[in-house]
């Protein structure tokens, strides 16, 4: 019999004892080696972050010197003064000295944790920031937790119903909210739910984190939570779309992968495939982006805090610009920038910890 076909690869003898694994390192060696790599990477990233923070310090100082407005006049709150008095004041504030000298002074003091004294409040800036940090962390922390949870959950559902009604509805709503200006949405909610429109009574407080007559004890928490509702909703509505969209698209990528089919063929139910394979893998890019986007949340917090007079860093920053209160501006700006840099660094390092492919590379 003739064999009219090309004889493919020979079905020869069985291959010998298994091929050597790609790496020579044994089990323990490979693991600790990988983690050593992560550590080295983290240290390098930390160095980069410190460099960025240094740049921020430089930029902060010179940026705010370019803003028009005389701090001496702002300091006296428009009380008429003679030019001599103003000169004296400027000398006391150190504004008469050459810029490089002022800068050196600023850096040396900042290193010791002294961010100067507020002209407006006549108190150390570091103290003011410490006071305002709590409310901001409460607002941003709560808002971010809700936004991330909501976004990831809706994104997962949207991807699983790809092209369906639920997908179009939830994606559409989130994108509309994302496109809405934060202050506008804030004012709208304030009008409807705090001031009350027509028959709707105002059910939430209009401003601040607590009233003068705030109750003590455990009731205080409820009191603050009541104040937190509207600012939090505003912040969540404006930022959760990005988490939804990122989760949705990365999950869609994963669903198309062959290993999802393999898992199904092994006997996993669809819901289990989603939980064990697709969602954890889709979380990888999402987690990174969550951290990278925290900068945007900080920006949203400035607007939200201003609209609702929330006594946080954002409001402090806004009030300082109106001053202009140089020391406070510099201080809050630096804190906000450092927060973003820290989060970005964390995102980079986290990616390495989470992804075995990058980890060992």
């Amino acid at each position, binding site marked *: *019999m*003739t*064999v*009219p*076909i*090309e*004889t*493919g*690869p*020979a*079905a*020869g*003898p*069985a*291959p010998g*004892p*298994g*091929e050597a*694994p*790609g*790496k020579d390192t*044994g*089990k323990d060696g*490979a*693991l600790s080696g990988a983690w050593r790599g992560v550590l080295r990477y983290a240290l390098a990233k930390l160095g980069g972050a410190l460099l960025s923070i240094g740049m921020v310090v430089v930029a902060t100082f010179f940026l705010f010197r370019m803003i028009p407005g005389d701090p001496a006049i702002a300091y006296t709150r428009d009380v008429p003064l003679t030019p001599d008095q103003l000169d004296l004041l400027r000398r006391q504030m150190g504004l008469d000295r050459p810029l490089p000298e002022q800068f050196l002074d600023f850096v040396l003091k900042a290193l010791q944790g002294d961010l100067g004294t507020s002209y407006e409040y006549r108190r150390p800036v570091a103290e003011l920031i410490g006071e305002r940090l709590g409310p901001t962390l409460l607002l941003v922390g709560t808002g971010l937790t809700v936004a991330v949870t909501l976004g990831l959950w809706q994104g997962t559902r949207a991807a699983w119903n790809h092209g369906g009604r639920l997908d179009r509805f939830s994606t559409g709503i989130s994108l509309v909210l994302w496109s809405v200006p934060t202050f506008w949405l804030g004012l709208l909610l304030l009008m409807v739910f705090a001031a009350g429109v027509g028959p709707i009574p105002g059910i939430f407080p209009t401003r601040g984190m607590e009233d003068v007559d705030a109750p003590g004890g455990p009731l205080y928490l409820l009191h603050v939570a009541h104040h937190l509702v509207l600012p939090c909703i505003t912040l969540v509505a404006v930022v959760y779309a990005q988490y939804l969209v990122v989760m949705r698209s990365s999950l869609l990528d994963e669903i198309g*992968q*062959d*290993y999802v*089919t*393999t*898992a*199904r*063929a*092994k*006997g*996993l*139910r669809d819901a*289990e495939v989603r939980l064990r*394979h697709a969602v*954890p*893998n889709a979380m*990888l890019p999402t987690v990174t982006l969550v951290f990278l986007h925290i900068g945007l949340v900080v920006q949203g917090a400035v607007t939200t805090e201003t609209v609702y007079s929330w006594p946080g860093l954002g409001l402090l920053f806004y009030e300082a610009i109106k001053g202009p209160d140089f020391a406070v501006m510099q201080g809050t700006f630096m804190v906000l920038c450092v927060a973003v840099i820290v989060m970005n660094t964390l995102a980079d390092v986290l990616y390495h910890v989470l*992804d*075995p*492919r990058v980890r*060992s590379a």
Partner: protein
Amino acid sequence: MTLLEARDLHVEFTSRGRRARAVDGVNLTVGEGEIVALVGESGCGKTTLARTLLGLERPASGTVRYGGTPLAYSTRALKAYRREVQLVPQDPTGSLNPRHTVYEAVAEGPRIHGLRDERQRVASALSRAGLRPPERFFPLYPHELSGGQRQRVVIAGALALDPGVLVADEPVASLDASVRGEILALLLRLRAELGLSALVVTHDLGLAWNIADRVAVMYLGRIVESGPVEQVLGSPSHPYTQALLSVLPDSPAPVVLRGEPPDPTRVPGGCRFHPRCQVLAAGKAAEAGVDGRCRSQPLGILPAASGPQVACHFAEGSRTPA
């Protein structure tokens, strides 16, 4: 004895309002310890047929049987079925979760099915798939392995469940020629040592020749010729099989098929191959007096017999007088 069986299987998809008959009446059996190759060009429905045999796709009509029992599509029945019939997918890189280690990938099946002695099962599956010593591979991630090693891990993942049948969809298409031979040798060895049956889906006739006991040739959703590998690939009866074989490099006179590639949303009347049939075009069908039937009379669905069979008016006509 028949292990895996497709009976009068139809699978349809609807795309842009048009019905595509991806699998359009297929009878196929895989016996115990038998390796059957399913060959055909891209888009002929062979992957869909494989997916349906795995229970990943639901047939529009017809049944998939395992050991004589029709497959039910309840969650529990599918789970039980998947212990017996396992998939070896085409692309080992894509079919391994990049964030699971080799151990986790192979252990997944036994975990799903609640099998005991997980560690021992994984080790035994890996060594049967040729990855020895298995413990060395446990902590590795897919990206640390070569393509051949990845395919071995995928095969080990299937073997960990001690299945009766492997359904391999182009198991070596994405591998280098040198590795290809090793994987094929592995499949043959598994058959010899474990009595494993396999349905190998491929467009590579050389592979079918090397590995299969029987071959089924698929064209546009139907099996047009089937039988022992020497018969079908040695002296093909169907013009389509002849054309496939004629374009292999050492063939004397290649037959280039004319016409559009087959479209499952528009299956031609009469013999479904007639618009591209070189025998009809050359007038040989007319000489035999079957050209009218080629164009108008549909052919019956081939039964799932193990002997040589062909669905062609011309071949039937020329065989009868002989």
